[in-house]
């Protein structure tokens, strides 16, 4: 029916397990959370509805129940380099990317959708974003990105891929459309941009040119103190591992 993969098998067990894993082991500092309630709120955002009509605000209760503080200076935004970011953030120990928050950890690398007039999850297929934008997964990440940006503070870092086709700073993109507009200016002291090229990859974008220049200008116009560095050494070492 739809072109995308269906709901991940055993979704309920996986996400409830992840929720408890997070509050008991990954980041017990967030305190007590009701993981069953969080699952219910998550599910109610998209079941029994037209899978092409799910909006970010449908996840509001889910976010309210799973929200926790993001330590200042630990936010790491990114585009086109998810695996690298996961390595670099070290599961929240060096940085806390959106995937290292409880709400992000909950849904990372999973897929889900429901169907109209049925309380069940659709395991056969789910709509891709091309088929319809307002699908369950896309709206989830939009809401997660908005929330993540709203609760970030101190020095924030952005890791961009200088070898990505179409530019390091994609527009449209999550960072451009859902994160930058939701940054809280009075809580942010500085924005540090890292543009890193793939090893032996093309140097399509760098600080001060093309899409990165557009990003720097936009942030400076908004009144932020912005620094940009090419090929940050620490990150380069991670890339060398492959």
């Amino acid at each position, binding site marked *: 029916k739809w072109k995308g993969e269906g709901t*991940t*098998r*055993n979704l309920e*067990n*996986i*996400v*409830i*397990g*992840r*929720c*408890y*894993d997070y509050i*008991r*082991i990954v980041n017990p500092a967030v305190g007590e959370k009701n*993981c069953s309630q969080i699952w219910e709120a998550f599910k109610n955002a998209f079941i029994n509805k037209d899978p092409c009509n799910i909006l970010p605000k449908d996840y509001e209760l889910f976010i309210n129940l799973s929200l926790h503080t993001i330590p200042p200076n630990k936010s790491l935004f990114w585009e086109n380099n998810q695996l690298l970011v*996961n*390595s*670099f953030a*070290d599961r929240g120990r060096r940085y806390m990317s959106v995937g290292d928050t409880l709400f992000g950890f909950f849904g990372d*690398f*999973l897929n889900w959708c429901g169907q109209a007039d049925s309380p069940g999850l659709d395991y056969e297929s789910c709509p891709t974003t091309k088929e319809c934008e307002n699908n369950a997964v896309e709206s989830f990440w939009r809401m997660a990105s908005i929330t993540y940006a709203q609760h970030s503070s101190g020095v924030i870092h952005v890791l961009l891929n200088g070898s990505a086709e179409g530019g390091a700073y994609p527009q449209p993109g999550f960072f451009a459309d859902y994160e930058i507009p939701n940054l809280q200016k009075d809580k942010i002291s500085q924005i540090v941009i890292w543009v890193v090229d793939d*090893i032996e990859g093309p140097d399509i974008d760098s600080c001060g040119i093309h899409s990165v220049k557009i990003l720097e200008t936009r942030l400076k116009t908004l009144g932020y103190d912005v620094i940009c560095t090419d090929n940050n*050494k*620490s*990150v*380069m*070492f*991670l890339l*060398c*591992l*492959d």
Partner: protein
Amino acid sequence: MPLQQGSVRTRQRTVLLVGIVVLLAALVLAVVLASLLTHGRHEVSPQMLKWKDRGTTKNLQEVILGRCYNYITAEYPELGDKDCLKIWESLKDAFIYKNPCNITAEDYQPLMELASHPIPCNKSLFWSKTSDLAHRYTKSNQNFLTLEDTLLGYMADRISWCGDPSAPGINYESCPKRSECESNPGSVFWKMASKMFAEAACGVVQVMLNGSIEAGAFRSSSIFGSIEVFNLNPDKVSEVHIWLMQDIGGPQSESCSGRSIQRLISILEERNFKIICEDNYRPVQLLQCVHNPDHTDCRLCTNST
């Protein structure tokens, strides 16, 4: 008239005295009741044994089940179907309601059989005193697997559990340390899982050791030194590659020519394995360099890397 006044005063005094006694009695009763009630609320399981290590991880069932399903669904779907519910039940049965100092290998046999799976050749990575580095390496390089990257290890990593003969059979307050008793649920589990991990290894195997600790990189008392080394199968394993990693800017306590390494090499050679030892294996060192990018040992990767 003075007699009448006297009797009134006596009655008043009596009433006062009785009143004070009643008040005191009520106070004492209240204190006793309060202490009984709060005493009952704080002592969750007064009969449970008390130990020195942290207790069973809360929500153990949900965490184990979630990790099992996550592993077979999202991490290594090539594994095929494992019955996660059965796996959880077999883990629980291994320790629930048992004295946590009396756990045996037989207790874990059903779990080991249900959760074990084959390991591709040339991918086994053993480690000793290099946990953080070894696991960061396998997360960035899917070509290697530590025990904690197999289903059994993945489920149990950083978790603790132990039982107790009294209800509810699981002790969430404390669990025995190895120094209190060796046959505790955690130690027995990891010994068995390590033995099986070594038995399953084939082809070329790797081991990451720490060249910056004073006590020596290879120790016979470690799980690697006492169990894994002796359970490698010479009919399946052809070579052992030792990666001897020193902390960047840290003490260079031992290298491949060091005494404990020579001892390890002779143990392995006696069992007919071919050995290669490398000081500061470069790909792993690059990972260390992420945290020390400006150190002289960390020149950026070149074609020769």
